[in-house]
């Protein structure tokens, strides 16, 4: 079963007297641990696709399922297994990186100490242990991406949605970040949906798709071999 499945999703917006079609009959399936990158130009419908996949917006037509459940009817506990990252509008909660990462855990009934331990572990996984106690104002863009990623994985989500992870990051730091996201997705079996601007790097993506004027082009479903290959997570397996 796919973790995320969009079936014939369409979305239109009304702007004054014009009707803009953001998504035209888009279908997409993402399996366990798979990294799918959707590239496209500015008004290609990328952000709309992400918001709909995250359940933040409803499609006009079509259906979105998350681990088999219609996202509209999904209970909160299930929705919490979707992590949405958008570094452009990052609300910097907390005094330092550690607290920022631990924040989503405060809502869950675990102790503050336990939350801090898990946050530290997440920061270690993304290679940001050394900046655990730096304040948000000191973070450079690539650190923001790492910290956002840590905050997303601290809740152990099934689905990670990341809007333009390398936006604003220095050229030489982009590919290592994308490979980090891929490694974590493969290791933990997190279905991952990324977007990339027109010319942004697509390194680390298992599948690359293109949104062109609201139409999704490319391999919209994983090949059978990929589904088997990405079954999570054999101990010590790394891609």
């Amino acid at each position, binding site marked *: 079963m796919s973790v995320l499945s969009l079936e014939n999703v369409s979305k239109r917006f009304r702007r004054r007297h014009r009707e803009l079609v953001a998504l035209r009959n888009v279908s997409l399936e993402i399996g366990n641990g798979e990294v799918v*990158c959707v*590239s*496209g*130009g500015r008004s*290609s419908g990328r952000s709309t696709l992400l918001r709909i996949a995250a359940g933040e917006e409803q499609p006009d037509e079509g259906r979105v399922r998350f681990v088999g459940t219609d996202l509209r009817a999904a209970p909160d506990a299930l929705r919490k297994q979707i992590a949405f990252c958008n570094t452009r509008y990052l609300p910097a909660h907390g005094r330092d990186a550690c607290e920022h990462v631990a924040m989503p855990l405060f809502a869950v009934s675990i102790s503050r100490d336990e939350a801090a331990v898990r946050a530290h572990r997440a920061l270690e996984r993304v290679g940001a242990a050394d900046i655990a106690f730096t304040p948000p104002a000191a973070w450079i863009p690539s650190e923001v991406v790492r910290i956002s990623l840590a905050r997303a994985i601290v809740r152990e989500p099934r689905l990670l949605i990341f809007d333009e992870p390398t936006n604003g990051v220095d050229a030489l730091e982009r*590919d290592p970040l994308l490979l980090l996201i891929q490694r974590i997705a493969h290791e933990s079996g997190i279905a991952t949906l990324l977007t990339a601007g*027109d*010319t942004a*790097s*697509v*390194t*680390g*993506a*298992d*599948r*690359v*798709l*293109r949104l*062109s*004027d609201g*139409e999704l*082009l*490319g*391999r919209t479903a994983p090949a059978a071999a990929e589904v088997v290959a990405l079954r999570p997570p054999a101990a010590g397996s790394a891609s």
Partner: protein
Amino acid sequence: MVGNAELKPSARLAVLGLLLERPSWGYELVARFERSFGGPYEWSVTPTAIYQALRHLEQNGLIRLHPNDDEAEGEGEPSDFSQRSKRQRYRVSGEGARAMREWLAAPMPSSPSQEELLIRLRFRGADDETLRALLKRHAEVCLAELERIAAVPAHTRMERLVKEDRRLAVQARLSWIDFALAELRGPDDARIRPIER
């Protein structure tokens, strides 16, 4: 047969298509080719290649010298091809017109080259719906290539430079496909009425 091996079939088709639009001299054809399909950089088609295409097409009876020019030339017609092609106009023979028609009507290969796509777009070898399908298929080929590039490990500086070059080239092509699809969604030039003064 001289130089046929290195001749791109797409260059021949482009030359044939341009001559179908109107008879041309060799050098005029070079200029028209550049205007229509970009310069030698884009297609790696040099003027020499265009003269070679002319020679090939003539040898195969797909084009011939324009009758008027033939008469004007009279007996003094130089036998050397390169001498003639610079001064004389060529037109498409009945056989050439048929060959072009057949090629335009034939189904496209599953992964057409960019040149082939451009020729089809230029000479309207298909209705908009077919062209859209064609462009989408072309996009799929580019995306498959992009996936291959994404999976290439680049450990050294040189590997990274090469990878980045290939990636950006393929993505530029995808941007062009975005543009082309948007164009095909809009009205055709021919249907846009010029502004009346």
